[in-house]
């Protein structure tokens, strides 16, 4: 019986000729990523070694990545102290893939990993962040784990008790129309599957639109796969994966590109007609509360946010700049833009996107998680409505349980910032 992409990946990683869904494996880890919650991982890691008489060294400092992004620059002395503790640990353990608060190498973890070539097709990647699913866009099996589990990985070098997951195949037929993007596609998929529809499963993306989609769009699809409950999202690697890794991530070593078996067995196959899809929007307070933008257009918004690990990439800023150029953000609406990394920030600066965005009245924030999780910048007032290109709209997500958050593409966000109400970027409002 044929294997799906992740089945095959796990079999290779574990040195098994084949694996069946439900088999329990303990795959070696290629990359273990944490952000500020590394402070908790360090606590748990040290506790593991307590009383063992052993020296607490991580299994492989080159396979650990730590990126400061959630609260940068530190918003409180507590965060600053956590960051200091992590810096000391990084120095002591010799951890190489460390991205501090810096304008040259900093950014959001789910952008830093791809753009630095840390993730390869076939790799097993774990991260103490639920959106670690992002890295399936490069053909890795990438999934989120908790801090204690990460401490165990730092000690052992493998993940314990991984059940080989069943796979849902999503086939996207045809091509997306103008003004419709990867974000609209994944929102439609989540609306179809519901917030728990892919629980304990992998979503594997196929079809004409996916083959033609740049890695930046694939990162969006895999990033938000977790919002349908998926353990991981994945795009089997192809020529575009290789192009991205060589040209944009500077990878020079050999790549192992493979696909699922032709006779792979999927639990479920979902087909989507890309050409029939219009802009989508996730309404408060669940990500699966997805509607066509047309259903809620005209809704007043006080804050528009473009950024995050979902839609803070160069092409997202390009779309926003194109819509905003020479125009002005509506009175009564504020617009915040936070690029996903400093590399993207400088590229957007060079190409003039940031200039156009600022001239339109938007505030450009430093790369980082910022308003996305509501701890740092861009808090909402009671009763306010925000429109964001981020990935979660749970009650309280942007820091205020009495506010509402809608999720959309950068095009919908930028078009709505100009009008102050939810707007279809294709016109006709």
């Amino acid at each position, binding site marked *: 019986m044929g294997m799906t992409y992740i089945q095959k990946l796990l079999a290779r990683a574990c040195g098994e000729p084949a694996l069946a869904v439900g088999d*329990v494996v303990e795959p070696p880890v290629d990359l273990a990523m944490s952000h*500020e*919650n590394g*402070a*908790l991982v360090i*606590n*748990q890691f040290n*506790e*593991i*070694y*307590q*009383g*063992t008489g*052993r020296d607490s060294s991580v299994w492989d400092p080159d396979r650990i990545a730590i990126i400061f992004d*959630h*609260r940068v620059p530190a918003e*409180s002395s*507590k*965060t600053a102290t*956590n960051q200091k503790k992590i810096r000391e640990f990084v120095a002591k353990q010799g951890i190489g893939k460390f991205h501090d608060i810096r304008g040259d190498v900093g950014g959001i973890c789910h952008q830093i990993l791809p753009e630095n070539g840390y993730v390869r097709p076939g790799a097993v990647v774990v*991260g*103490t*962040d*639920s959106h*670690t699913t992002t890295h399936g866009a490069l053909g890795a099996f990438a999934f*989120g*784990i*908790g*801090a*204690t*589990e990460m*401490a*165990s990985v730092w*000690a*052992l070098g493998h993940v*314990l*008790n991984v*059940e080989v997951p069943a796979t849902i195949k999503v086939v996207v037929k045809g091509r997306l129309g103008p003004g419709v993007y990867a974000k609209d596609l994944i929102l439609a998929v989540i609306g179809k599957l519901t*917030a*728990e529809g892919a*629980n*304990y499963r992998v979503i594997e993306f196929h079809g004409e639109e996916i083959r033609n989609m740049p890695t930046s769009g694939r990162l969006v699809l895999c990033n938000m796969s977790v919002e349908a*409950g998926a*353990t991981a999202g994945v795009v089997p690697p192809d020529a575009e994966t290789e192009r991205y890794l060589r040209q944009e991530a500077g990878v020079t070593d050999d790549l192992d590109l493979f696909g699922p078996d032709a006779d792979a067995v999927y639990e479920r196959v979902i087909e989507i007609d890309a050409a029939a899809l219009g802009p989508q929007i996730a309404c408060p307070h*669940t990500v699966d509360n997805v509607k066509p933008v047309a259903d809620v257009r005209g809704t007043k918004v006080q804050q528009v946010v473009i950024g995050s690990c979902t839609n803070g990439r160069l092409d997202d800023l390009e779309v926003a700049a194109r819509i905003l150029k020479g125009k002005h953000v509506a009175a009564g609406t504020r617009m915040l833009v936070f690029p996903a990394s400093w590399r993207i920030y400088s590229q957007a600066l060079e190409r003039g996107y940031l200039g156009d965005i600022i001239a339109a009245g938007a505030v450009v924030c430093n790369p980082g998680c910022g308003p996305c*999780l*509501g*701890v740092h910048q861009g808090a909402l007032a009671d009763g306010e409505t925000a429109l964001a290109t981020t990935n*979660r709209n*749970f*009650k*309280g*997500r942007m*820091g205020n*349980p009495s506010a509402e958050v809608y999720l959309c593409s950068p095009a919908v966000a930028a078009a709505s910032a100009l009008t102050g109400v939810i707007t279809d970027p294709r016109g006709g409002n």
Partner: protein
Amino acid sequence: MAIARVVCKLGDDVSTDIIYPGRFMATVLPTETPQYAFADDKALNAKLKAGEIPPGSFIVAGKNFGCGSSREQAASCISGYGIIVIARHFARIFLQNSINVGLAMVICPTIDAAEGDELEIAEGRVWNRTSGKSFPIEALPQARQAIIDAGGLIPYTRRLLTKQV
């Protein structure tokens, strides 16, 4: 297990932002996280902090409890009160975190109970002593149960490291 009351009844898709809002994520120690459990549900949070909920009490929830973030604080903040969570099912990372840090949780796909009901867990079922009905519990896979039996992932990993497993 003793008979105890349902202190709180929740719906489907309760996210980690509800259980432990992101703005408290800089607090990490299991000894400090309980104060922020359900912080935006002012009444529940106040009851918890005032010690009005005896350990061993139940929270009953619907499907997909703990969806969202991987933040382990969402498990440790509840476990600090000794509360047992019964849900129709749990989100993957939350379930794993609960096993790893020792939050008592019960997967009960058909559970039906109201706030104030008295429940008892026995013989692989949840018995609702108030309604007189009982509901089957779904067992955890063997490999996960082994971590619980070891007292959590820290002792389990420690044993693996020192080769006592």
